[in-house]
């Protein structure tokens, strides 16, 4: 009975005084000292272990991500430069091919023109020779025709008049 009342005294006192148990100052020094010890332990632990590890992990990751992005950007730039070089090379090759084609075409056309001119010259020569022959043959033929005509006219005159016409008369007759 006596112990029971003694045990129940403390809470009853706190309740009776109407105060909060937090204002029971007998517990303050112990709590403060223990709390300071506990806080110092946590502070040391965080300062020496937790914060460097966790913060370091975050920084490692950011450095890795930034490094990877930089690498990727560098590779992309390289690939773009290579693509540009390849495009330039292709354009150069195409220009070369076009130039070669044009040259070949010009050469072929020049050859064709030369051969054509040569053939034409040959043909023209042949035509001139032929023309000359024709002109000579015609002159010859024309000369024959004149002698035949004066012969015929002499014969006709002789037959009609009984006398042979002189050469001068025949010539004047043919000229009129």
């Amino acid at each position, binding site marked *: 009975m006596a112990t029971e009342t003694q045990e129940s005294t403390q809470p009853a006192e706190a309740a009776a005084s109407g105060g*909060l148990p937090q204002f029971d100052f007998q517990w303050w020094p112990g*709590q403060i000292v*223990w709390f300071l010890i*506990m*806080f110092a332990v946590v502070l040391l632990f965080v*300062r020496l*272990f937790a*914060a460097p590890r966790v913060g370091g*992990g975050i920084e490692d990751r950011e450095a890795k991500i930034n490094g990877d992005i930089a690498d990727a950007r560098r590779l992309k730039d390289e690939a773009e430069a290579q693509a540009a070089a390849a495009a330039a090379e292709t354009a150069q090759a195409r220009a070369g091919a076009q130039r070669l084609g044009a040259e070949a075409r010009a050469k072929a056309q020049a050859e064709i023109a030369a051969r054509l001119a040569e053939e034409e010259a040959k043909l023209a020569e042949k035509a001139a020779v032929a023309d000359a022959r024709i002109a000579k043959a015609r002159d010859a033929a024309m000369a024959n025709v004149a002698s035949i005509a004066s012969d015929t006219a002499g014969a006709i005159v002789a037959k009609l008049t009984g006398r042979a016409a002189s050469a001068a008369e025949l010539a004047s007759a043919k000229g009129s």
Partner: protein
Amino acid sequence: MAQQPAIEPMHQFLIHKIVQGPVFHLGGLPVDMSITNSVASMIAGALILIIFFAATAKREIVPNRGQALAESLYNIVDRVLVGPIIGHDGKPYVPYIFALFLVILVLNLMSVVLAVGNVGGLDLTFAVTSQLAVTATLAVLTFFSVFILGFIKHGPKFLGLFAPGGMPVVMLIFMIPIEILSYFVRPVTLAMRLFGNMLGGHVVMSLFGSFVVALAIVGLSGGVATLAFIPSALSFTMIVALTGLELVVAILQAFVFAALATVYLNEVVNFGHGH
């Protein structure tokens, strides 16, 4: 007749000894180093923090869940508080703010979350942060660390903090006492804010908890009194809702304390830049 349990919401804050420790005297004041339920909860909180970070503080590029949680907690201090408030110069102080944040957070959360495990007299759910002795220690420690750091970094010039620039001399006569008062009231508000929030939440939860039992006992007596089960069930619903609310308060108060410590620290670190 069923015996009514007394509704005593303050009972949960009572301190009792678990292991008797040495008593030494500090300037004539007896300091009882006994392990009380409050001290046991503090030690448990410190152990939880140390075990958690020992297990999760890795430097993996791809974090697992534990490491991701540890990094989220660190980023709250590093990227949400110190970075934007102080800037690059605040980097060396991150571990101190982080430790402050973690201690308050773990003690707050333990008192709400572990309450379900409060069986067999294993009293690790004691709300350490609803002890004014503890919150006052935290507040005074934070406040004077910052104040002393100000003198170490800036010397007597640091007293210029109490004289706002661009004031006529006549106004300074009124302003300086007001500034000094508002400055030195900071540890009081720091201590009372955390203490009041944790105390209030736990008292309300305890009250509704008592209602659940008391009303259920009334309901057991049969007859019309059976209707008492309805408010009993409602009280139980309230406890569930309040537990959610108290979780938010527990996290928020740890954040607020860390945020204010950062703001106070900023005045010291960036002293003379923004004034």
